[in-house]
Every structure is written in structure tokens, then in C-alpha cells.
């Protein structure tokens, strides 16, 4: 046996609830025992389109949170943005419908052993996994600040109970429809300084993660980010989801974001390497 995908299992998960929240759908699935294995940062892979679907690949979604409900089985929640065909199909399914779901997959956010001051930054639905993370960090005595950003208010996902789990919540929208007008990166430096942040956890579009990493580097603080690469399998067998990452030996390798990620150390990512293999990558020729 190996440790890859080690707590993952495949289940027929019944949709327990599917509610529209702003631009997103908050969906709850009955997943049984596997809920107990999920950690903040892990993701699920769901088959879409039903039988005879022209879509042959699963779709990945960050786990928003899980509940262990004993004998009735655990619940797993995700936040879905209806985007293309697959996510739209999923958000159109009603409670009672069962989907083929694999979870938990991928790496989780690293939890510090010391009570640190953490800043959680989410872009769009990227906020979803941060609330569960915030609970864990709080239970470890960490202070948690949060910044959420999106193009517009409808795309800010910040449920009430989620908000309660953080010490401060700053919202930034590009059109100013809620919170301050601007990007998350406009406010992050101020918060880092004001609250003496030790570590940033982030989840959102690649461009945002890169911009955050620039800031964290400048401040010399840690940055763990959950990246979103196009995935065909989600379990490490296809090699489509790779991104160039620096290892401890300084060597750049093309690593799979589904099993060596999605949560990675921001400083290890070779940013801006879309459509090119960075020079010096292991095996580049």
C-alpha cells in the first residue's frame, strides 16, 4: 500500500440540499464515513452529466466543510459556481439525486503547531475552504483574519456562521458593490502590518495567488495556497494537472497539483509558468 490518495473513497452521495447563494450554489451531500477524513484544503471529484453524458471527466470542488453525523452518515459541503457545462449540470440537480463522488483528495492546509496569527484570503468561491480552516486554526488558539475579494458582491461567498469564526473580515470588490472597492491585494499589506500576520493561507484564481505570494515574500512570511489546475483524473494517474514547483533541493519539477497539491507552499511555485516549462526544470530538454 502507499500513502497516495490514502483516505479517498468513492461513494454514491445523495444531494441533501442545493441552495443558491449569490452567484453560487451551496450544495450538501450525504457521504457517510468519509466525511471524517476530510481536512481543510482537500477536494472532492464529482462525475457530471449523468449516464450517457458527453463529459467524460470529473469536476473538482474544494470541500467547504464536513459534518460527522454518526449513524446517519457524514455530510460534505461544497460551493459551486455554475460556469461551464459540468458545474451547471451539477447545480441543476435536486435533493434526492445521487452523484458519484470521490473524496477526500489532495493535500490539506498545514496547521501550525504554535498559535500563530493567520490571514486567510479568498477569491470568489475560493473562500469556501477557508471557513473550515479558520475553525481549525481557532481551535488551535490562532488569531484569524480574513479578506475576501471578487469582481462583485454576488461573487463574495461569506455565510454568517463562517463570518463568526474570524476575528476580522475585510471584503473587497472590484466594482465596489460591497466592501471596499479594489482587490484583496490592496488591503493585505495593511492587515499584515496591523495584525503582525505570521502566515497567509489563500485560495482563488492563479493570478491572485501569485500577487499574494509577491506580498508574502516581501514581508517574509509563509504563504500556503490552494491552486486550481485543469485536472482530468484528480487522483494522480494522468499527469495533466502539473505545475512547476521547486523542491527542497532547489530543483524545479513538474508536480501533480492533485496529489502534491492543491495546497502548496507559495514560495515553491514557479509563478507565471503557464504555457512554458521553466528553464532548469528536471527533465526539460
Amino acid at each position, binding site marked *: 500500500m502507499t500513502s497516495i490518495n490514502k483516505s479517498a473513497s468513492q461513494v454514491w452521495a445523495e444531494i441533501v440540499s442545493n441552495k443558491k447563494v449569490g452567484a453560487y450554489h451551496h450544495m450538501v451531500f450525504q457521504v457517510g464515513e468519509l466525511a471524517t477524513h476530510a481536512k481543510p484544503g482537500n477536494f472532492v471529484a464529482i462525475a457530471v452529466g449523468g449516464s450517457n453524458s458527453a463529459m467524460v471527466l470529473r469536476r473538482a470542488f474544494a470541500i467547504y466543510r464536513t459534518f460527522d453525523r454518526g449513524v446517519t452518515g457524514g455530510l460534505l459541503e461544497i460551493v459551486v459556481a455554475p460556469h461551464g457545462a459540468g458545474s451547471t449540470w451539477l447545480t441543476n440537480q435536486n435533493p434526492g439525486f445521487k452523484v458519484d463522488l470521490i473524496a477526500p483528495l489532495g493535500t490539506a492546509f498545514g496547521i501550525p503547531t504554535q498559535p500563530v496569527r493567520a490571514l486567510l484570503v479568498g477569491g470568489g468561491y475560493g473562500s469556501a475552504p477557508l471557513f473550515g480552516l479558520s475553525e481549525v486554526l481557532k481551535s488551535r488558539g490562532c488569531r484569524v483574519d480574513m479578506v475576501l475579494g471578487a469582481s462583485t458582491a454576488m461573487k463574495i461567498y461569506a455565510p454568517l456562521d463562517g463570518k463568526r469564526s474570524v476575528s476580522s473580515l475585510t471584503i473587497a470588490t472590484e466594482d465596489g458593490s460591497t466592501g471596499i472597492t479594489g482587490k484583496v491585494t490592496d488591503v493585505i499589506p495593511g492587515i499584515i502590518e496591523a495584525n503582525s500576520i505570521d502566515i497567509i493561507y489563500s485560495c482563488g484564481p492563479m493570478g491572485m495567488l501569485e500577487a499574494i505570494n509577491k506580498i508574502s515574500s516581501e514581508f517574509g512570511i509563509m504563504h500556503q495556497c490552494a491552486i486550481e489546475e485543469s485536472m482530468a483524473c484528480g487522483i*494522480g494517474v494522468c*499527469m495533466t494537472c502539473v505545475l512547476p514547483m521547486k523542491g527542497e533541493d532547489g530543483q524545479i519539477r513538474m508536480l501533480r497539483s492533485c496529489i502534491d497539491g492543491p495546497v502548496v507552499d507559495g514560495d515553491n511555485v514557479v509563478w507565471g509558468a503557464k504555457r512554458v*516549462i521553466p528553464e532548469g526544470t528536471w527533465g526539460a530538454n
Partner: protein
Amino acid sequence: MFNYQTKLGQAEFSNPIFTASGCAGSGKELSQFFDISELGAIVTKSIMLKPRSGRATPRMAETPSGMLNSIGLQGPGIDLFLENDIPWLRDQGATIVVSIAGESVEDYAVLARKLRAVSGISALEVNISCPNVENRGQVFACHPTTARAAIEAVRRNIGGELPIIAKLTPDVTSIVEIAEEVVAAGADGLALINTVLGMVIDTNTMRPKLAGKTGGLSGPAIRPVAVRAIYQVHSALPHVKILGMGGVASGRDAFELILAGASAVSVGTATFGNPTAVMQIKEELKNELISHGFDSLQEAVGYAHRSEGNI
């Protein structure tokens, strides 16, 4: 008792359902979902001489009933592969088919020499659908002479025992012609088919979606092409064993390839949609065969050819 065994060249397999090269990782990734020793064989990702980063991303695009990939043969190279992957697979009790790929005829020769003394390998799949750097990057399997040269290099260097299965691309004017050449060059069996060359243009960015521009089309979309290729080659070379693949996602699909002439079937893209697809297909195919009255897999191989005379 139903006999599910099959042979490719001299190699025997307990059942005909294999993983497809490049679609099962190192085996470790799937072992969480099922016992990989229950596979007919695990076909490893095509391994090259040296470590290889593969192509830049994006490397994939979903297409109607299929997908494009351009992984570019990312891998650790033969030495690390033999050091890490093979021992682990052997420890699991897996039946192993090693797939190799080269950029020159000499590469194939060296790879064969490195493998000839390795124990625990059942067969060699020789992926000749790779660009030949010595010939303007043209794919070996696209031309009879280069296809032949690559297989001859393996044949000369592999020693007596290990069956050679030459994996061909369907992107040729006559796949039968290429099949005849590689068999003449010493291939014991044929793997049909590799992916079909395709492209997707992202209509948002208005440029090819894949960083490598073109990619290989796989999945159910290409199954009719696989069935045709297998049928044509089995017609022309009935005594050459075929490992079939291309769009198999159910026992029914695997049965279709068997009827066309495949002695075993590899499952690729279906695993991405469903990690346990291979195990399900193994069960379903067996049930299909039994429900059609076959006592053994062998009786069904190429049955679509034989029954023609009967009607």
C-alpha cells in the same frame, strides 16, 4: 468453469483487462481503490531513457465524449523507473507490462538492453507513436521504415523471452501496412490504438487550448476508430495477438474490441472518470462473455469475423 485467461505472444495473463499506458500512474495511485494484482496487467507509462519534464500546461482539454492530452511523456527515465517503480509493482504481485518510448532508434535499443535482465516483467509494449528527433520529429509509427527500425532495435536487444507488443497510431493511411512491417520486424503482438491527433481552440483566448497546440484524442469518441483498426489488422494478420484499446468504458465496449479481434483490452481515459473502471469492466466483460454462451475468452476473440460466413 469459464476460462478468462489470455496470451500475448508467449506471455500469459489471468484475465484480459489491462490499464492503458499513461493512464494508471505508477500503480500506487490506484492501489487505494483496488488491488492492482487483480488486473490482467498494469501497463506502465511509457518510459524514456532520461528524466523528462513533459510538455507545458495546459495539457488537457475535455472534448465531446473524449479528451485531448499532451503530456509529452513526462517521467523519471528508465534508471529511476527500474529502481523505484518496478520493485514496488513486483511487491504488490502485479502483472507488469513495461511501455517504452524513444526519440531515436538507438534509444529503443538501449531501453531494451536495460530491460532484458529485469525480472518480473511479462511483456514489453513499445510505444512508437513518438517523434523521431533524427527524422524531422516525424512519428516512428507513421512510416513503415521508421516503425520497422524501432521494433528491430528492440528485437535485437531484448533477448529471447520477453514478448514485444508494438503500439501503433491510427493516424496513418494504412494501419495494416504498418502492422505488417512491425510484425515482420519481430513484434509478437500489436497494441491498437494510440490516441488520434486532434486540437481544441479555446474560443475565449482564441488560441489552441493546449500549450503543445495539438494533443491526442482518447475516450469513447474514438472507440469506432479503435474497433475499425483492430478489425482491419486482425483480418490481415489473424495470428498476431492484439492488445486493444480506445474508448473502452464498459464491459460491452471491451466485448466489442474482443469481437473485433483483440485478445486483451487496455482501459485508459475511463479510469480518469472512474478509478475503479478497470475492475468493473473486468467483471462486466466476463458476464457479457458468459451470457453470450462463451466458455472462454479465447472463443470470442475475433468472433465478428467468423460469424460473417454463418449468416
